[in-house]
């Protein structure tokens, strides 16, 4: 099969082309021996199949990061039959740098002038024909995100594979004797830009020499008010995300009821064992509901953030928060995943792929875990309200928000120097792209791919875990006390008591690590004993919980101090099973995924212990 490689700087639209061409026929893995992600996919054109490789994002090919070394080796190794070099037509001179770096490689190539819509909007004219003559390779003006022009691209690739072209010119990078490495790099850099200006002479004209910030930018980039407006826009974004996902959630929430009774009746009629009836009528519909609601969360958050990214807003946010984030060993770019994490940790974890390099990405993921997602905020006020007056609940919320920053700081102190060593810490160097219109079709398609992928993974993982949980908590009599879970729970209670949680809250704490939505249901099951723990554990709905009754039993059974310790432990433990799975998928490192989960569980228990013992004299 012919192998096509995509090469370009971040923001050149490389992944857009990759996603549009391959759709869902993608495979994501690792480059051998490295934590760098390898993305390849397949597309067909005129009954011929082509492999497409998305080369790891880098700004150049000078071999200064794992990504750059891999990319350079791959191209030099001649594994690709054709390299598609992508540049941003709206910032041609600068983005041609990648081509200048690539020029020495002497392999067949084409040049894709992406974002022609933006360039045209800026009044830029580019003479693609002249550019092609000078370079000796075909040049294709393109707008990757609007979904058009792909047939032309495929046809060009087909043609070039038959009769390939190589660059006929390259920057004059001759061996410079007697210079230090950094000096050579500097001189080579200059040569590359000289080459670029020669190539571009007469091809395009630099449009403006004086840059003026737009009125919106003047507001959004203000040190204080800019941050306020930015946060306001993000909050509106979350509301929009909820609106987007509510229809899916609504339909999914009807599944357990709609499927439960008919399946149960049908199977009972067949004299199937009640145990199996319960699996098919309760567990499976609930798991399905749970997975759909999670996937719709991911969909909503991705649509909104995809939009904010595409119009150029997120880059401004990175500018705003670079200072704060560099204190954590991160940089401005980490702000988008952290903000996404406020909606959904899964979205936040996958959003860390914008980071430069694996270490920063892993650290950003660990920091994202510290951000309580939207689901947590739907349970904390309920539980707190059972034990404390309104002002007390407000205090609990403030305490939780304050601890987010403490935890982020602890994470960065514990893991920062390992993941992003001091000497390799790179400050933010990023472009603020011009604002442009969003390509909705692409945003929705891309979010759909992510959401579907998430759904598939959730179905696998959640089914497995819920069967396990279900088995542990199955009780033939319907009473919690005859379940295995109760036996284990009460057995280890002396230990959990030390951390401030009795066996009931501890079981709910464990279920919170699977899904935050499960917490109220689990509490109901272990305290009221009315339903099976497993039946509720993965039931994202809390509607069936009688909060008044639960409140009465809970306040009788446990102390305010234990409730408080439990709330903190729940909030800052492993966010959920799928966040864990996504962290593994994104980091490609089992070791670090386990480390992250281990750290969060231990940190949550220690936190619970501290909170409990401090609160005991007051709330005992």
């Amino acid at each position, binding site marked *: 099969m012919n192998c096509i490689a995509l090469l370009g700087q971040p923001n050149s639209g490389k992944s857009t082309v990759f996603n549009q061409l391959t759709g869902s026929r993608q495979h994501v893995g690792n480059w051998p021996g490295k934590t760098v992600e390898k993305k390849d996919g397949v597309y067909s054109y005129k009954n011929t199949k082509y492999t497409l490789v998305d080369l790891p994002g880098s*700004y150049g090919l000078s071999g*200064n990061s794992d990504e750059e070394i891999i990319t350079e080796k791959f191209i030099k190794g001649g594994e690709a039959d054709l390299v598609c070099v992508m540049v941003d037509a709206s910032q041609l001179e600068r983005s041609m740098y990648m081509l200048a770096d690539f020029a020495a490689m002497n392999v067949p190539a084409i040049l894709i002038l992406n974002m022609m819509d933006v360039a045209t909007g800026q009044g830029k004219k580019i003479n693609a024909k002249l550019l092609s003559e000078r370079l000796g390779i075909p040049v294709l003006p393109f707008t990757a995100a609007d979904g058009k022009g792909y047939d032309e691209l495929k046809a060009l690739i087909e043609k070039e594979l038959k009769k390939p072209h190589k660059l006929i010119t390259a920057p004059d990078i001759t061996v410079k004797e007697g210079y230090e490495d950094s000096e050579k790099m500097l001189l080579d850099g200059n040569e590359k830009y000289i080459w670029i200006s020669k190539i571009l002479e007469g091809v395009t004209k630099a449009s403006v*020499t004086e*840059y003026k910030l737009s009125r919106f930018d003047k507001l959004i*980039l203000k040190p204080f008010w800019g941050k306020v407006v930015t946060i306001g826009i993000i909050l509106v974004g979350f509301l929009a995300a909820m609106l987007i996902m509510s229809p899916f959630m609504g339909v999914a929430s009807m599944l357990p009821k709609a499927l439960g009774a008919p399946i149960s009746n049908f199977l009972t009629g067949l004299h199937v064992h009640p145990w199996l009836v319960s699996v098919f009528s309760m567990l499976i519909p609930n798991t399905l509901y749970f997975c759909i609601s999670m996937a719709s969360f991911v969909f909503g958050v991705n649509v909104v953030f995809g939009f904010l990214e595409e119009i150029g807003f997120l880059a401004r946010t990175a500018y705003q928060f*670079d200072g704060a984030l560099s204190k954590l060993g991160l940089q401005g770019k980490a702000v988008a995943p952290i903000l996404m994490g406020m909606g959904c940790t899964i979205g936040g974890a996958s959003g860390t792929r914008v980071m430069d390099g694996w270490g920063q990405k892993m650290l950003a993921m660990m920091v994202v875990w510290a951000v309580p997602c939207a689901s947590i905020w739907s349970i904390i006020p309920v539980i707190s309200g059972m034990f404390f007056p309104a002002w007390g609940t407000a205090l609990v919320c403030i305490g939780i928000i304050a601890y987010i920053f403490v935890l982020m700081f602890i994470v960065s102190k514990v893991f920062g120097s390992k993941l992003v060593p001091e000497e390799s810490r790179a400050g933010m160097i990023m472009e603020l792209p011009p604002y442009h219109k969003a390509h909705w079709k692409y945003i929705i398609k891309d979010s759909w791919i992510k959401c579907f992928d998430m759904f598939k993974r959730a179905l696998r993982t959640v089914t497995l875990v819920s069967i396990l949980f279900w088995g542990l908590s199955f009780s033939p009599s319907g009473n919690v006390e005859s379940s295995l879970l109760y036996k284990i729970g009460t057995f280890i209670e002396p230990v959990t008591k030390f951390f401030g949680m009795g066996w009931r809250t501890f079981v709910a704490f464990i279920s919170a690590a699977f899904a935050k939505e499960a917490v109220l249901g689990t509490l109901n099951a272990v305290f009221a004993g009315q339903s099976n723990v497993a039946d509720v554990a993965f039931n994202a709905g809390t509607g069936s919980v009688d909060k008044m009754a639960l409140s009465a039993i809970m306040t009788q059974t446990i102390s305010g101090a234990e409730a408080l310790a439990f709330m903190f432990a729940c909030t800052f433990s492993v966010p959920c099973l799928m966040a864990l799975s996504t962290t593994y998928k994104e980091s490609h490192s089992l070791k670090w995924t386990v480390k992250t989960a281990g750290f969060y569980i231990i940190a949550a228990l220690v936190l619970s212990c501290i909170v409990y013992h401090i609160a005991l004299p007051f709330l005992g």
Partner: protein
Amino acid sequence: MKLSEMRASTHGTVKSLWRDERFLSRITSIGLTEGADFQVVKNDRKMPVLVYVRETLLALNRKDCEKIEVMEVQG
């Protein structure tokens, strides 16, 4: 003077860059080379510096800007 010390709306030329390979490779690939002309678009205290260079608006971390020696020129 350092890039971080330049006022907004002034123009300048890069005089010299800090000799560190990682830094050089990043900063070169994004368009800042010795001799490059640029405009400082915004420079607020404790915020990254906004620089317009080679038709691109860049946000540069403040600390990194201290590694860039520049010369002001009359725009």
